[in-house]
């Protein structure tokens, strides 16, 4: 195992994940086995990963990009995405990733707020970018991965640029506080916020990949997360590759049979996936699983939303495997609290803090609560992968910290044995299928629809997704709610925000409850939906 991760003060993530692995003698080791949705396979060694990311770093340099410039990938999972991310990191660019199903508004919010100078994408996604291009004055370079020739003066062919670029690149020394990865995260109010990390994060990602996911250099690891989200970068790129682990990356979506064939055929030893996927598997015919040989698979880890105890029981009974649930956030950059090998699992719990992390359950006044009592889940600030700012929103960043504690926005309890138990959110954020959705973003998109006068969006429990997006809409008087309008609303949100944000239920309502200052009272909508007590309505505007 590569325990000495930082050599000669070189903290650069791109360098450590590639060049340093060559220095460790792993040039010919497979870094990535790429399996397309059509089942085409191609192996890339650490030498390949180094060469391709070096080429992309040289491409960026030739274009004129500088350290600190913001550059995004906007791609489905594919090899070029990994090469370009590592190349950007080598160049010390602020490296953002965008989920491939983002709609126009979601793209505009992120590219506009960050003043992104470049984006790497594919031809069929260009139409989305073109629809918002006039609102992105900072955007100078668009690189297209499919196509052999440049399209316009500022729309370049990836293959052409790469063919002209050298595979020789020396990454300049990178200090630990150099900005690195950028992900946008949803808030319950306002636009998404740009969560910025620094290269120092690799220390925590390395440690948790080893000590929580339990990876060693002989493992074959599969992380199903998309690179558009933090798990996809922290544990689908950085954690495994910084310690020379072979990863499988698969371009297809959920397909129980294809997934289990992959686990079997690739001899995956550790699998990191999401509770939503595991709950979908639980509903499959159990005979499916008995036809596959999973003897190589040591254990499964999960992340994204709380894992129900029945899934753990199902995995033990049907697969003969343990599932270790882990907890972290975009802001934390790496796993904070986790079940893990060597720790007795308490099904349904988040597990215990990982080494070097000090969480606490705090009351509203900042005092620690007694074990067994619910409060705000906080983490002592200063861990290596802690986010360093919200881009362009220092005030919002500062508001997340009080008296040296980072307030996660989750509520939890700690039991007498030190296990943590997730209880809920202290805000209105919706966690659907492991992705956070801002009710504000969905409400804003809904108001752009001609027929809708007011909207309110809440989270409601869902058997598979953990939570689903439920939209209450108040129509202008002349319109009526029909199946056609319901479809129009769904498609509008899908194409403007993202498919994930699509309301799974749309409920017409006479008026949206608001308080006297005009704030949507989502808790009243939620109580109405769930049929629970509405509580104090003294501030309700009638």
């Amino acid at each position, binding site marked *: 195992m590569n325990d000495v991760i930082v050599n000669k003060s070189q903290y650069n993530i791109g360098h450590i994940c590639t060049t340093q692995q060559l220095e460790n003698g792993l040039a010919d080791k497979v870094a990535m086995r790429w399996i397309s*949705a*059509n089942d085409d396979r191609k192996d890339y060694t650490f030498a390949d990963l180094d060469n391709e990311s070096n080429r992309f770093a040289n491409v960026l340099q030739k274009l004129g990009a500088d350290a600190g410039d913001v550059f995004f990938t906007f791609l*489905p999972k594919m090899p070029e995405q990994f090469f370009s991310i590592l190349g950007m990191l080598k160049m010390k660019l602020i490296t953002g990733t965008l989920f*491939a*199903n983002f709609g126009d508004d979601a793209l505009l919010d992120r590219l506009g707020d960050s003043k992104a100078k470049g984006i790497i994408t594919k031809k*069929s*996604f260009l*139409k989305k970018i073109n629809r918002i291009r006039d609102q992105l004055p900072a955007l100078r370079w668009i690189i297209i991965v499919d196509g052999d020739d440049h399209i316009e003066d500022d729309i370049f062919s990836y293959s052409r640029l790469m063919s002209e670029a050298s595979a020789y690149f020396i990454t300049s020394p990178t200090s630990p506080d150099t900005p690195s990865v950028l992900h946008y995260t949803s808030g319950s109010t306002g636009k998404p916020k740009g969560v910025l990390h620094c290269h120092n994060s690799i220390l925590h990602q390395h440690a948790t990949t080893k000590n929580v996911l339990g990876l060693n250099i002989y493992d074959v690891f599969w992380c199903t997360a998309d690179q558009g989200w933090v798990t996809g970068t922290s544990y689908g790129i950085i954690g495994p590759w910084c310690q020379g682990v072979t990863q499988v990356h698969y*371009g*297809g*979506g*959920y397909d129980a049979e294809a997934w289990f064939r992959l686990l079997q055929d690739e001899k995956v030893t550790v699998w990191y996936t999401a509770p939503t996927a595991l709950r979908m598997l639980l509903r499959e015919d159990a005979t499916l699983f008995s036809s596959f040989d999973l003897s190589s698979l040591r254990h499964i880890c999960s992340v994204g939303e709380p894992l129900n105890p029945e899934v753990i029981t199902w995995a033990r009974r049907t697969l003969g495997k343990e599932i270790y649930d882990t907890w972290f956030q975009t802001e934390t950059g790496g796993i904070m609290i986790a079940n893990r090998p060597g720790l007795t699992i308490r099904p349904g719990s988040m597990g215990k803090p990982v080494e070097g992390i000090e969480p606490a359950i705090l009351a509203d006044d900042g005092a620690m609560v007694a074990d067994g009592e619910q409060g705000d889940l906080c983490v002592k600030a200063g861990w290596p992968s802690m986010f360093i700012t919200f881009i362009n929103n220092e005030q919002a960043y500062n508001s997340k910290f009080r008296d040296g504690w980072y307030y996660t926005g989750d509520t939890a309890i700690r039991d007498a044995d030190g296990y943590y138990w997730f209880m809920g959110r202290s805000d209105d954020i919706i966690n659907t*299928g492991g992705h956070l959705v801002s009710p504000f973003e969905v409400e804003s998109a809904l108001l752009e629809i001609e027929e809708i006068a007011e909207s309110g969006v809440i989270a409601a429990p869902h058997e598979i997704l953990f939570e689903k997006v439920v939209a209450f809409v108040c129509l202008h008087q002349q319109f009526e709610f029909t*199946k*056609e309008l*319901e*479809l129009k609303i*769904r*498609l509008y949100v*899908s*194409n403007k925000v993202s*498919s*994930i944000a*699509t309301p*799974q239920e749309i409920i017409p309502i006479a008026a949206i409850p608001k308080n006297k200052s005009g704030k949507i009272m989502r808790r009243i909508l939620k109580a109405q939906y769930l049929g629970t007590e509405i509580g104090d309505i003294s501030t309700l505007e009638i």
Partner: protein
Amino acid sequence: MDTLSQLTTLFREVFLDESIILTTSTTSSDVDGWDSFAYLNILMAVENHFGISISDTEAPHLRNIGDMIALIENKISVEN
């Protein structure tokens, strides 16, 4: 207009993408943005357009556009 052509029009509306060309062998991996959430939009668009109802047990078995066409045409013929 045949069922494939009607589905192509529907898919273009669902994904706001005029470049979509469907064949009977098209699967989710051939259409940008076709994930499990978008699939629900597709099913609702199909139900509204063809005036049919697709159950939760039928939906997961549609492996490609050919399967979808067969289901739609079967339901239309049964319901007529």
